[in-house]
């Protein structure tokens, strides 16, 4: 299968290309991995905060209630209602979305339809509000014009495609 060859081919061409350009691949990897530690350390408290909030909403049954509420909208787009919490937090916070995705993968399994749709939805969308906030932080005029509605419409179009892939 093609997608089984994806990683070996990709990594081989990356490392081969880097060797050909006489780059110090080992030192570069170690430097990059060091940055990776910082990223993971920075994400832990954020993830804990969001995971606590998500778990509380889940255990008390609030998420299930909200899912039932949004079921007609999601089934219109061909998505299972269980991905509703992911769709709701994805544009707002990357850590919260990560927390929700992890709950979904563990509860329904990564290879179930729900798990596949949720993974694809997470992998194909962006934290719209946060990204726009950060990018405008250096600007004098922080109006967003039509950017947010257009980005949200794009996100929903992408979600619809996720549903098409896994039926």
């Amino acid at each position: 299968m093609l997608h089984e060859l994806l990683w070996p081919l990709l990594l081989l061409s990356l490392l081969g290309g880097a060797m050909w350009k006489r780059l110090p691949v080992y030192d570069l990897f170690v430097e990059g991995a060091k940055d990776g530690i910082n990223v993971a350390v920075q994400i832990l408290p954020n993830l804990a905060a969001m995971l606590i909030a998500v778990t509380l909403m889940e255990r008390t049954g609030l998420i299930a209630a909200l899912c039932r509420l949004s079921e007609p909208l999601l089934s219109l787009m061909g998505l299972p209602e269980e991905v509703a919490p992911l769709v709701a937090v994805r544009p707002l916070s990357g850590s919260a979305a990560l927390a929700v995705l992890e709950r979904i993968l563990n509860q329904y399994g990564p290879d179930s339809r729900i798990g596949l749709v949720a993974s694809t939805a997470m992998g194909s969308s962006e934290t719209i509000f946060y990204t726009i906030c950060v990018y405008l932080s250096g600007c004098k005029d922080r109006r967003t014009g039509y950017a947010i509605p257009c980005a949200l419409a794009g996100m929903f179009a992408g979600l619809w495609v996720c549903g098409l892939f896994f039926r």
Partner: protein
Amino acid sequence: MFFQFLWFTMIGSALLWAMLTGQSSVILPAALESAANAIQISLQLLAGYLFFCGMIAIVSKIRLQESFCRVFQPVLCRLLGKKTNSAALEAVGMNLSANLLGLGNAATPYGMKAAQLLDGAAGGGNRHGLYMLLIINATSIQLLPTTVLTLRIGAGSADPNAIVLPSLAATAVSTGVGVLLGLLCRKMMEAKDAA
């Protein structure tokens, strides 16, 4: 500010709901259990980051980003409008190519610089170009969703890569729809200004 409001809404609504439905006793165990769960996930993510950030450090030195940037230049010129100056175009190109390659840390400073240039702090502002930069960034992500792959492998997936192609297709559609709507809005606003 923003996260404060989001977090408070999430926790506050859960606490109220728990009291209303008589499940107050689940709160504390659930909170502590999920904090422990966060440690577990961040260990998984740490493993993923060690590997992917290491490899991405090599990607960033191989100068792929610059070649991607050059390929994008003509398309971006059309999307951002003809009057975009070359410095802004360059910054947007570097921002997008860094994002595509998963170089998140490199992408943000370029994006902020591009936004400032388009904002017109130094003269020659381009509001529509700025909105287009925001739309593209808010709808498009990296070619390979490495964090999702890490979590899928951690959850014991038999085929973690199964989502790579669908994710690419979904991203392409979301960016395409966002950009088209953005162009439409620009046309409409320009027509209104002209009238």
